[in-house]
């Protein structure tokens, strides 16, 4: 028997989960307060579409600005710290340790400084996403093969040309994986902040409806964030693949070459 395509399997699992979401509360296996039916969740989402749409726009706005802060400052700080040996030795351990601190503990301070509006969420999520971007940018620059720079120098590259033509393209793959992670953390940061103290956004709606035990509306909010996060990840992956063709191509080739003997061998047992 041929192994099914992983893509088909993934869609199969998704459909199965959605069906279970409908069936488990319907059969009474779990009370509807804990898990409202999928159909009911979608129904309240449809009824309150305007409200959820407005909340989603607020969340999206905060997420985008937080990502800009995380990526912008992260790349600049990472490039500076990764590129300058003195700063690297001095600051990199500090930032690595700070990354381990649950920054959410600082959120009350953010609300005190920036109020309970969007600004506090943007700043908080921006800092939350800043660390992985900064650390991977620094790593990307630090791990460049010194042979590349030596070769460029032998061909007469100036410092500026070494940066634009060697350091930046060579560190792109590492920087991009940091950006993807940083963006995901920015989404988490915004939603967490909205759930703690807020007056708008999907996170706020979820908390609000939880306190009045309106489960379908809680799950409607969860569904919104789920879709937003998955959409972001697909988009980021696609962008990454396009920007670093050579790297993903290299990876693909490795996978293909390691798979080749398996694929060739596959028809044989089937024939026997």
């Amino acid at each position, binding site marked *: 028997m041929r192994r099914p395509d992983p893509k088909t399997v993934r869609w199969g699992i998704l459909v199965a989960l959605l069906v279970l979401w409908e069936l488990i509360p319907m059969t009474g296996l779990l009370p509807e307060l804990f898990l409202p039916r999928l159909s009911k969740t979608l129904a309240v989402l449809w009824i309150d579409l305007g409200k959820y749409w407005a909340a989603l726009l607020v969340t999206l706005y905060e997420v985008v600005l937080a990502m800009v802060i995380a990526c912008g400052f992260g790349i600049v700080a990472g490039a500076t710290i990764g590129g300058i040996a003195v700063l690297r030795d001095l600051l990199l351990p500090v930032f690595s340790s700070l990354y381990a601190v649950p920054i959410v503990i600082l959120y009350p301070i953010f609300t005190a400084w920036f109020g309970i509006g969007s600004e506090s969420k943007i700043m908080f999520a921006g800092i939350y996403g800043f660390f992985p971007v900064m650390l991977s940018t620094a790593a990307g620059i630090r791990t460049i093969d010194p042979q590349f720079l*030596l070769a460029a120098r*032998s061909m007469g590259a100036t410092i500026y040309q070494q940066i634009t033509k*060697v350091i930046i393209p060579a560190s792109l793959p590492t920087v991009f994986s940091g950006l993807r992670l940083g963006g995901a953390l920015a989404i988490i940061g915004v939603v967490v902040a909205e759930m703690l103290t807020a007056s708008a956004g999907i996170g706020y709606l979820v908390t609000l409806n939880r306190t009045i035990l309106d489960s379908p509306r809680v799950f409607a909010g969860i569904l919104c964030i789920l879709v937003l996060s998955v959409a972001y990840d697909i988009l980021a992956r696609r962008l990454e693949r396009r920007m670093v063709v050579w790297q993903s191509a290299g990876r693909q080739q490795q996978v293909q070459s390691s798979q080749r003997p398996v694929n060739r061998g596959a028809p044989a047992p089937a024939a026997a």
Partner: protein
Amino acid sequence: MQYVADMRAAQASGAAIEIDRVSHVYAGPDGGVPALSNVSMKVGAGRFVVIVGPSGCGKTSLLMMMAGLRDHTEGRIDIHGAPIPKPDPERVGVIFQEASLFPWLTTLDNIEFPLSLRGMSRDERRRRSEPMLSLVGLAGFGERYPHELSGGMKQRVSIARGLVQDPPVLLMDEPFAALDEQTRMTMGHELLRIWSTTNKTVVFITHSLTEAVYLADEVYVMSPRPGRMIDHIAIDLPRPRTYEMMATDTFGRLRDRIWQQIRKSH
């Protein structure tokens, strides 16, 4: 003016590279580590010179100094009659080990990299890089990325990149060290073919005694650190070289002489 006069003098004497009593000490906590000691050599224009020596004898350092990539403490290095305080791709091309092709550029873009640094237009770059691609036997592979090429092909690209600015001197730092022996033999032979059509001066570093004798007009043997020149051997095998020559007595004697020198120096 002085430069031009020096150029003429150098051309008259036929020396492409002149190294005069060069010493180098790496700065360290207690006075430093001597790397090279009183090294002199003279390479005639159009000659193929091979430097062999044990690991860590400073032969790569010496090559980097000839390329203007590293300073030396004492002595003088002239390339075509003028010192080389910083890399000058129009005088000296350098070919490294496999790792130095840029994986994000296609074969043609890699070959054109030195030209793009000088702001040459795309058309002009293509006009110069495509003949290089054919010269190294890779016509039709211009749009491939390095990861799509074999080790030998990558090294052909490196050679094309070293030649694209048409420098009179080509420095090669163990360019075939990462290749398997069969590919290595083929590449050595290919290099001689390319060299014979371009009349470059080549300084080639290797660990392989067979490669040294097969390729060289002259072989310099270096001692362990601090590196000194301990022998200078003329390889008087006729050109073009053929694989059959490796089986001859002369070839064996020359290789043995180099080996004895290296062994004695330990």
